[in-house]
């Protein structure tokens, strides 16, 4: 037995030698240090941002991994109908939201229950979706993929479809086995790798080059007087929730919206804790000027409507702040009218400031653009 094993391993060693000799003797037209090693990609955070939440050590970025993630992000192959990709509802020109759609629009023209949130600065999210049900970026993609009214596909079937690429006669030839091999060193296509590649791509989607960012980095002329004024009012009246450089405290709050027709209870659906009724995640305001409509169900189409809701100052109309036990105390201060007191000039200044968070470089950056496999409607 031992002798047989010995001979076998000797033969195996010989074989390995033969293979490696053969390999080194073949001519490689493109001399590379190593064929199967993906190229590491350095990820750096903007200096004034907090440390990322996502653990890059478990999924280090590579050029090939990010590229694969980009193809997966845009490719409709992730949906049952093969025509809805992530990029369908997360469109770059709208800071990766669904331009013109209050509720998400999925397969067979089905309509979801919530507004597609922006895919940006995901590295810093402590939770995902309006109800924060998911805590790990790697676990985000299956939610829309397997949602019956979004992409209505099974991840297991996506994997099978990816394995069968390139598909003869397809308009866009994508060879996923080759891309997985480039990204991970072998052509094995697994769900873990698929999610890792998508996370790698989403990790690169950092928005930090708005005019506001130039201002923060020391260019005082990047903002006008009105915008600076707006910034200071914002800090007084909005930043307790839309806090920090990501403009969210990542908490769940009830901002006094009247419950919608389906009586969406938000965070409560995750925790079943009565204290969480009607609470939704405080969204980042980066690129807010590009991500209309607003709120978890897209009920407001303009920033003016949003501020009117908070100001609760519509003459003659009833209270715009819906009172319930979980209403955020910041909107319900004792001895004053519910909401946030804002003059009309203050509202205009805040909106002017919010528009300085629009990041034109981010929405035009070719690194994040559809490589030609996407569909949009």
């Amino acid at each position, binding site marked *: 037995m031992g002798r047989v094993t010995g001979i076998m391993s000797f033969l195996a060693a010989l074989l390995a030698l033969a293979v490696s000799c053969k390999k080194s003797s073949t001519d490689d037209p493109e001399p590379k240090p190593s064929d199967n090693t993906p190229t590491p990609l350095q990820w750096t955070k903007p200096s004034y941002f907090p440390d990322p939440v996502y653990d890059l050590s478990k999924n280090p970025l590579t050029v090939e991994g990010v590229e694969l993630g980009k193809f997966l992000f845009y490719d409709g192959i992730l949906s049952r109908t093969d025509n809805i990709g992530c990029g369908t509802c997360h469109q770059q020109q709208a800071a990766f939201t669904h331009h013109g759609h209050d509720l998400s629009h999925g397969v067979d023209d089905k309509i979801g229950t919530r507004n597609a949130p922006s895919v940006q600065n995901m590295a810093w999210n402590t939770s995902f979706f309006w109800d924060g049900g998911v805590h790990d970026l790697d676990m985000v993609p*299956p939610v829309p993929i397997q949602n019956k009214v979004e992409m209505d596909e099974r991840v297991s079937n996506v994997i099978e479809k990816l394995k069968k690429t390139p598909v003869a006669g397809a308009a866009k030839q994508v060879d996923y086995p080759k891309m997985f091999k480039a990204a991970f060193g072998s052509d094995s296509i697994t769900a873990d790798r698929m999610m890792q590649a998508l996370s790698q791509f989403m990790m690169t989607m950092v928005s930090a080059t708005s005019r506001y960012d130039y201002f923060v980095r020391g260019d005082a002329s990047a903002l006008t007087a009105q915008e600076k004024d707006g910034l200071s009012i914002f800090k007084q009246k909005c930043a307790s929730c839309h806090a920090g450089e990501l403009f969210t405290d990542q908490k769940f709050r009830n901002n006094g919206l009247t419950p919608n027709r389906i009586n969406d209870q938000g965070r409560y659906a995750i*925790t079943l804790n009565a204290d969480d009724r009607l609470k939704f995640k405080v969204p980042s305001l980066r690129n807010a000027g590009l991500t209309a409509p607003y709120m978890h169900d897209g009920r407001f189409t303009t920033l003016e409507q949003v501020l009117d809701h908070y100001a609760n100052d519509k003459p003659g109309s009833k209270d715009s702040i819906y009172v319930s036990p979980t209403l955020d105390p910041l909107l319900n201060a004792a001895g004053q009218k519910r909401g946030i007191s804002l003059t009309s000039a203050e509202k205009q200044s805040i909106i002017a400031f919010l528009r300085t968070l629009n990041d034109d470089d981010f929405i035009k950056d070719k690194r994040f653009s559809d490589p030609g496999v996407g569909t949009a409607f």
Partner: protein
Amino acid sequence: MMKRTFSWLSAWALASGLLMVSCSFPDEKDDTDPIETGTIQLQFDNIVGNQDLQLDSTRYVNAAGEDFTVSKLNYYISNIKLTRIDGRVFTVPQDSSYFLIREANSGSQKLTIRNVLTGDYTGIEFMVGIDSLRSVMDPSQPGRKGILDKDTGPTNEEAMYWDWNPGYIFLKLEGASDSATTANGKYYYHIGGFGGRTEKTLNNLKTIKLNFPGQKAIVTTSIVSNVLIQADILKIFNGPTQWSIKKSSGVMFSDSSKIIADNYAGMFNVKEIKIN
């Protein structure tokens, strides 16, 4: 927030750890004696009252007088323990102790447990669902593969995992009923909830303890006992709290799922043991 996360996780970890320690089989006293092991089979048979369960074709009636068919019945069995006649408990190794019973797949209903210490066994304990420790384990870990792989295989194909609020659906019962209030006349019961990752929430984990009636399951190096466990799904409706399809035709992650979980916790019984 973070502190709360840790305290919850550690509480679960501690509880599960204690459980495992206290239940693991004590070392044989005499280690010159070779430890002998054998195989035991657990056969799950889903029934409706005194009838065999037939998917789609047969209409049944529950205690509320509502007719219903069953189009899908899946549930997880995990954390299996066997009690020997001397009172010692044999815990099936954790990684070999997760199963997804599917009525539409007869192979899935026969669980073969290998490497069971020989002896005469008098009872069994198992969990319906997936324990909290395994539920919060990173999905890329080996312990979350196989039948627990949320992205491939039966768990994915049968949609036994909630992506939006990560956790396994412990039991899924679907079918049609004239009493259903849905647009398509179907009812949907997806029961899960392992207790919560970052804060305490729904816990529908059920541990079932059954004694073997009048008979022992003998495990030797050559004798394989087959324990026939019946699951009477009529008890899901006619359990401690009577359930009405008309009152609620769709139950998923909600407080009312506790009633269904309490009901199905009582649906199992050991019918017989065959010695082969």
